[in-house]
């Protein structure tokens, strides 16, 4: 093989690593029954590819080649360790790996990725471990990248992942797609992890550091993978919701890093491709008639996205969607959002009555956005004293710097 071909083979191995390593990994976990063994086998397989492909050429099915090579290396590794452990144990381990695995035919690789997602998001694992494990094993991020994205220490995160893997092994958390009976609850857990990752990226996007990993982008990739593998209505709804929220990213903050409210955003900055894709997904999820909270939130986001200006927003439709959402997934936060929509449709006084009632009930007392919404409606009604008190409560409760600055600006603009 010429130098040129060899260089091309190396390049291809790199490209295949980027595109396929997680799929190969997912299959190796199934074949080897162990995350760490699979990770090691994956690296051995790619090392072998980098040696052999430039010399012998790239195989016809590189993915199958890598899976076979990884499995072979793992069995050899177990045999090699035989020198240090009792020989029966090794025989058993090799049998376990070699036996119940029919020759790999390339089928079911998508199922393996889905197995991996469901195992990483198993509700028997602590929620923060589900998030870390999913980013590590499904998205292939390094522990350092994940730690940086969540502003936590790498050793803490590494330990979380090690503990989660130990529980998977010890409690025998299975590597399988849940049965239809288990699916709704298990899918909830997966969607929650994806949305958590998205929100971490979304609310941190105004943060200080520009080197922080794009978690929202990772979450959207995960969402796409889910919709491709398991097109359940709520998976589609969640992807739609993420795309529609992400479409406003450029307009959400001013060049100076200040927060810009939906009504004041420059809509020409909204990402049209994401809106089109998101709205189409909303339609698809709604058409299933088995949709839930994610789809409804996406539908609300779509109504906003489709309005040419803040004034042209169809608030009647938004209130209606909140009504349905409140029935599907009752929560004080949804009630608060509905109250704001009512204020837009029927005027500030109508919305304020609802917000006052929520706060009087004792709900959302510690939620800065409830006080901020109350303050805003009071301001619009000219009730300056009440508005000032509510802004002050909101400022005391907010923990995000741009939000605090925004509220202080509003407070200082109040006439005396």
């Amino acid at each position, binding site marked *: 093989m010429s130098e040129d071909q060899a260089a091309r083979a190396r390049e291809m191995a790199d490209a295949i690593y980027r595109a396929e390593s997680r799929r190969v990994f997912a299959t190796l976990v199934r074949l080897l029954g162990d995350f760490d063994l699979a990770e090691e086998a994956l690296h051995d397989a790619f090392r072998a590819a980098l040696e052999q492909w430039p010399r012998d050429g790239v195989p016809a099915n590189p993915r199958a080649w890598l899976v076979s090579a990884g499995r072979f290396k793992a069995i050899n590794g177990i045999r090699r360790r035989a020198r240090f452990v009792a020989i029966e144990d090794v025989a058993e381990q090799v049998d376990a790996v070699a036996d119940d695995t029919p020759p790999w035919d390339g089928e079911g690789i998508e199922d393996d990725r889905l197995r991996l997602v469901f195992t990483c998001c198993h509700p028997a694992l602590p929620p923060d471990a589900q998030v870390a494990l999913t980013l590590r094993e499904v998205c292939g991020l390094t522990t350092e990248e994940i730690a940086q994205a969540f502003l936590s220490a790498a050793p803490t995160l590494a330990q979380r992942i090690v503990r989660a893997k130990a529980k998977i092994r010890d409690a025998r958390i*299975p590597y399988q797609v849940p049965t239809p009976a288990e699916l709704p609850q298990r899918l909830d857990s997966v969607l929650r992890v994806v949305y958590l990752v998205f929100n971490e990226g979304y609310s941190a996007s105004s943060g200080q550091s520009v080197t922080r990993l794009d978690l929202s982008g990772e979450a959207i990739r995960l969402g796409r993978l889910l919709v491709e593998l398991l097109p359940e209505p709520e998976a589609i709804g969640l992807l739609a919701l993420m795309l529609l929220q992400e479409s406003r990213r450029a307009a959400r903050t001013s060049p100076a890093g200040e927060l810009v409210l939906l009504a004041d955003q420059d809509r020409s900055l909204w990402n049209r491709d994401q809106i089109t894709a998101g709205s189409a997904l909303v339609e698809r999820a709604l058409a299933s008639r088995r949709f839930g909270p994610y789809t409804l939130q996406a539908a609300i986001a779509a109504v906003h996205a489709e309005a040419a200006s803040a004034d042209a927003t169809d608030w009647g439709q938004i209130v209606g969607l909140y009504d349905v959402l409140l029935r599907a997934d009752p929560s004080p936060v949804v009630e608060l959002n509905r109250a704001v929509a009512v204020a837009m449709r029927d005027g500030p006084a109508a919305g304020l009555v609802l917000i006052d009632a929520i706060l009087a009930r004792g709900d959302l007392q510690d939620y800065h956005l409830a006080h901020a919404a109350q303050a805003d409606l009071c301001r619009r009604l000219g009730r300056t004293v009440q508005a000032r008190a509510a802004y002050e409560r909101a400022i005391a409760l907010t923990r995000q710097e741009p939000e605090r600055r925004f509220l202080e600006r509003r407070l200082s603009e109040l006439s005396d």
Partner: protein
Amino acid sequence: MKFLCLICAEKVMEQMPEADAEKHFEEYREFTKEIRRSGHFIGCNRLLPPRAATTVRVRQGKASTTDGPYAETKEQLGGYYVIEARDLDEAIQVASRIPGAWIGCVEVRPIAEDE
């Protein structure tokens, strides 16, 4: 693989009104029959209330005995099942049918496979 299902609740059968206790016991009989049939059953026992418990410790060769369970919690250990299950999902599926899970909760613990 074997799993221990520890049944915890604020009330054990002795503390229920008689009709409730009888009904609850009947539900257990039915559940036990089912998992015997399905092959998950290995063993089970109902425990007498914590007031009948004694805790024993040995320190420096000296045994000390105290009244009551080793942990003071509102939820009490009321009984257990030992089951055979392929993996955690199957164990959860069986545990979720234990009548005590509807009023209290069930801790599912893998049993170590020591020689």
